[in-house]
């Protein structure tokens, strides 16, 4: 029994170290990335700031679509990175997902607004058509087609590894 107790002193940290080792080496494989190509779903939704309706046909060119919500902690974490993308001239369309308008506006006022425009998807219909399972998720749209999709927080590393190769290949954002 005493031996067991002594052993557990060693085994406990070893198991923690193992877990961290697995997690650290796992991270490179991007389980959240998805490169299947499909058309941007047909939708007609209201814009967050002025309640004007907008349809998928109104959106032109290349852009990034980012699913976010004021209740989503990870969105708050990736927010500064979106701001830096926007600053570098990448247009970002926000999909405000299952949110309350007043919360969303307050959230934007607190943390800044990197989005070119934001659509209200409060029933989650557009998100459902796009295959969204939660927030945040980010889509790369090339001439009306979704060409890459990432579940989870976007940062410099993810952007360079997951999105940048496709952007280069297709010559987007020029």
């Amino acid at each position, binding site marked *: 029994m005493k031996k067991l107790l002594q052993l557990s002193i060693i085994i406990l*940290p070893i198991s923690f170290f193992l877990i*961290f080792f697995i997690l*650290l080496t796992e991270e490179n494989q991007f389980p959240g990335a998805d490169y299947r190509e499909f058309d941007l779903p047909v939708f007609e939704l209201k814009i967050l*700031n002025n309640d004007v309706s907008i349809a998928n046909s109104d959106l032109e060119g290349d852009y990034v679509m980012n699913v976010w919500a004021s209740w989503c902690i990870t969105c708050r974490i990736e927010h500064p990175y979106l701001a830096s993308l926007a600053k570098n001239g990448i247009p970002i369309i926000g999909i405000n997902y299952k949110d309350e308008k007043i919360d969303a506006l307050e959230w934007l006022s607190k943390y800044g607004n990197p989005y070119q425009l934001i659509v209200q998807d409060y029933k989650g219909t557009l998100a459902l058509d796009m295959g969204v399972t939660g927030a945040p998720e980010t889509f790369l749209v090339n001439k009306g087609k979704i060409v890459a999709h990432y579940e989870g927080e976007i940062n410099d590393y993810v952007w360079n590894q997951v999105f940048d190769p496709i952007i280069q290949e297709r010559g987007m954002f020029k």
Partner: protein
Amino acid sequence: MIVEVSHFLSIISTGLFFLVGCFSLTIKNNSYVTSLISRTYSHAFLFLFISFLIYVWLAATDNFSVQYIYNHSNSDLPVFYKISSIWSAHEGSMFLWIFFLSVWGFVFNIAIKNNQILKPKTIGIISLILVGFLLFLLITSNPFTTILPIAPLNGADINPVLQDPALAIHPPTLYLGYVGFVIPFACSIAFLINGDPDVKWEKLVRKWSVSAWVFLTVGITLGSWWAYYELGWGGYWFWDPVENVALMPWLAATALLHSLNVSIKSSHLRTWTILLSITVFSLSLFGAFIVRSGIIDSVHSFANDPQRGLYLLAFISVIVLSSLCLFISRFSIIKNLSNIKIFSKESFISINNIFFGTLTFSIMLGVVYPLIYEYLFDQKISVGAPFYNAIFIPIVILASLFLFFSIDSKWSRNIGLKIFTKPIGLSLLLSVSVTTIIFFYFEVSKIFILLSVFTGLLVIFRYLIEIWFSLFYKKYLNPFSAIAHLALGLLLVSISLNSLLSTERALNIKINEFENYKDLKIYFNDLRVNKGSNYDAIRAEFYIEDKKGNGFNLSPEKRRYFTRGQITTETAIHVTPIKDVYLTIGDQLDDGSWIVNIQINFLIRWIWFSAFLMAFAGIILISSRRRT
């Protein structure tokens, strides 16, 4: 050029630290070897010190040929923030961390005489740890990388949220606390290697541990205070992973301080004490790993580089596992054969160790469990306040009750502990009556809040009575213990009442109109555009009046920083001893009104006051002349 000198000096010091480590652990010690080790350590420290000073000077004088300084500083910044930009990101923070580690070693080196048998090995272990971290710094996260041949004219600025005095001093204080526990750790390892159970290492490290604990306490409190007024969320603790990894070593260290006491007084609990000193330092290292590897998303998320994480993980596991193996192999020599007397102070403190161990372990689970879950089921979950509250509240209440009854207990003696004495009765009576008043006045429906207020009051009244006895009847009282535990009671009461009474609300107000909230009238008087040194600001002017007609002005701001385009909210807070009125301003709505978030936070100042009081108790102990 100068940056290369700094780089070179840190490489030399790495080599010297390595020599010190090898010498002290391989050569049989005599007075000559000891003084050699001591002097070589001092020289190595001198090199690292100069290297760090040069780096500070480079940052202060805007040397943007250094990549790191270019990325995180800017010539528009005040000098104070130019220097604090060193610890605003990964490489510089790591450099500071290592520098502080070497400072602790140096102070220990000059404060402890060479005839102390554990000194050479302690210095050697500190040196080897330094070597590991210096290699990590130089290989994976080099702060000395330069931009050549042409240096940029201006820097890219630091994160505006970090441009704040509390934040500039919060990380250094916290790091001083973290790395300070290298002293008890290294001493306990030296003691285990030495293998002589008669050496009293516990006495040697007591004040060092208390000093590190004071820094950690102050560091955590400053962080909490900063988050309150800067982030604009209005709370004092968010159970954020980075806060948790600071709280874990704090809890373990608090247990260590108690346990050290027992080991010094009666050489009981020595295994506990050694295990705790290993645990505290391991948790500090674990904290560095969690923060630096970017394995966890948090508001503090720093550079994300798996390579760094793997190096840190490997190095930390070597330290932790080798010290635990050593601990187990020497278990027989430190084991105390006599049993602890039931109802003695020792027994209470060993129970306290178990409570604190449980708390630490449950935070560890809270940090690690979401990671495992995400790995296995590919779903993000978050373990938040409900989990921690469910564990912390009952354990803290129980621990405080034990504390309450332990005050009369004696060292190594079973006798003399009565369950009911006059002081106990008096403090029970006072606490019950105050709790009853609170219960009826505020119509409290949550039983746990009431219970924690009650136990907090018990502790406060019990110690006040003790202080009374000591002042007027010259009864012996340990001032450190009394003040620290008074602070604990105060902390319990203020946290409970804060969570019970505080409220918040988002209001829509137009300029020149007013809204009512609770018994306050909020007038929105004016909106101005201001210019700061590196930002634009919208400043809203409010006048707030209570029912009695007493009023005050509050002016929250929204700032847009030029270099990064980042927008921050500046809170406006009206402080009174009882409550804070906390105002932030949001966006303008289509009808021209503004979103104004108002919070009334009760007793929040008392939470930080209690924490500082605890740290103050530690300072009393450090500065006291008495040996114990």
